[in-house]
């Protein structure tokens, strides 16, 4: 299958801050999850792909076209920005109709009505966007993006603020669009969210690619990462010596009365720890995993590449 979005050696920096660094990747029809912690460069990447920002280095081709050179490409490409910003005074219907008119679509009123129906916003369509909840705004933005029936749909954190029912509806919609042959790129900082939307994941951290593949691959790469667990115990030295020979424990250190454990399997450690404590008559007052953030996992993946 041919890539519809091709990013080659792309870098984008703002002064001294590098937002995206030497990134090369292709996106094909179907749904792809763009995963990464906040500040990973996902939004910048989507903006550059969308042509809203120019690359500092490298190039982007979307459906074979440089989006900054040919505005006609926006007949086939839409973006749902992360910003909550909408035209507060317009109603949902006016907002989507405006998108249709600016895209010079035939029968903008009818098409706007269809797009609103697709996102389940017909009942609230005649209310001002200023009074919409965050989830409703997201759906209005998705409707405005869908009104031109784009071949490529870029969605920056589209599930932010949506309630569980709305999330399920939007996820089903994105999957449907992907199955229909559209290229749908969905960014998120929540792995579980991306997992529900797509099988293919592109993980980013610090503006670089951390991993590309299906969700299972990403999950496996994550579990390979050694995790640190801090334990407060009544006798830290005794606990440390008892843990040394425990399977899965890669290192133990006592610092300021706390046992710092490095393990390849935190879940297994959590199961074994109570038995070890009982066996050696050690009291445990606190167990704290310290490396569980997505950011730290991604950083590990990047460093390992």
């Amino acid at each position, binding site marked *: 299958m041919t890539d519809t979005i091709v990013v080659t050696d792309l870098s984008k920096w703002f002064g001294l801050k590098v937002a995206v660094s030497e990134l090369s990747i292709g996106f094909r029809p179907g749904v792809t999850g763009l995963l990464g912690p906040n500040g990973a460069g996902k939004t910048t990447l989507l*903006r550059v792909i*969308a*042509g*809203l*920002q*120019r690359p500092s280095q490298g190039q982007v081709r979307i459906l074979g076209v440089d989006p*900054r050179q040919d*505005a*006609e*490409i*926006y*007949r086939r*490409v*839409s*973006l749902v*920005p992360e*910003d*909550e*910003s*909408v*035209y507060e005074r317009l109603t949902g219907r006016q907002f989507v109709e*405006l*998108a249709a*008119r*600016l*895209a*010079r679509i035939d029968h903008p009123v009818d098409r706007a009505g269809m797009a609103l129906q697709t996102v389940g916003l017909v009942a609230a369509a005649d209310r001002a966007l200023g009074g919409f909840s965050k989830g409703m705004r997201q759906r209005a933005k998705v409707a*405005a993006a869908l009104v031109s029936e784009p071949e490529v749909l870029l969605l920056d954190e589209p599930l932010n603020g949506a309630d569980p029912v709305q999330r399920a509806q939007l996820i089903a919609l994105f999957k449907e669009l992907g199955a229909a042959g559209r290229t749908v790129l969905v960014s998120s900082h929540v792995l579980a969210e991306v997992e529900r939307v797509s099988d293919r994941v592109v993980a980013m951290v610090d503006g670089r690619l951390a991993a590309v593949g299906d969700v299972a691959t990403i999950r496996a790469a994550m579990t390979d990462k050694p995790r640190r667990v801090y334990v407060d115990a009544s006798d830290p030295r005794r606990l440390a010596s008892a843990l040394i020979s425990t399977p899965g424990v890669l290192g133990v250190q006592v610092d300021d009365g706390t046992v710092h454990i490095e393990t390849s399997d935190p879940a297994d450690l959590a199961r074994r720890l109570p038995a070890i404590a009982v066996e050696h008559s050690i009291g445990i007052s606190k167990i704290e995993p310290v490396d569980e953030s997505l950011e730290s996992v991604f950083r590990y993946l990047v460093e390992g590449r």
Partner: protein
Amino acid sequence: MALALHLYRRIMRRGRVISLLALASVPALVVWLAGFDADEGQLSEIYTDIISSVGYTYAIAALILTTATLRDEKDSGTLPYIYMRPIVRRNMAAQSILAGTAAALVIGVGGWLASVLASLALGAGLSLPLPSLSLYVAAGIGYAGIFVPLGYLAPRSLLVGLGYIIVLETILANVVTGLAQLSIWRIALSIYGGLEDDFGDVARDNLGPVTTGVGGGMAKLAVAVLIGFGVLTWALKKRDAL
């Protein structure tokens, strides 16, 4: 023209329009106050003098309005909704300047109508304020031509624009002869002067070294608008849209 219509509606918020109409109507109020005891002969000179000098309030109103054309979209994060549409960038630039011009003209004509009311209240006929309509129209077109691109390009466009009006147009242009030719207000005033036989001394002083004449003034105005259009087209193509 959907974009021009959208931008026009967006910038013409009720509160903004009312306050800017009030600002643009200040010269009319001054004309009315200054012309109470004037006879018909003096009234003409009073009118042209006041409109040409106090009329700068319209320049400020036009600045506030026209810089907002695209700046409002940028600042509120809604620019992607218009930028990511299949509109050729020069067309987008033209529609933006058109929207800014239309908005500036509404305020300008409002200010001018206030001066008409002041003239009528003083017993003068419509022939007194009629030529000054050209001043408001020309200034509106000229300011929109340069301030719409400024609003897109400069985050502190209002401050930069005020610098242009206060420092360049009202101070430096009086001292450095060549700079007077770069003043939109003087260019607009030169068109007004070309249509008004009874141009007062203060109005001529305000004009400085710029010669009166409708054709010349309109040519200069066209150059200013074309430069603004070129700059905005370039910026829309080449600069980050966020």
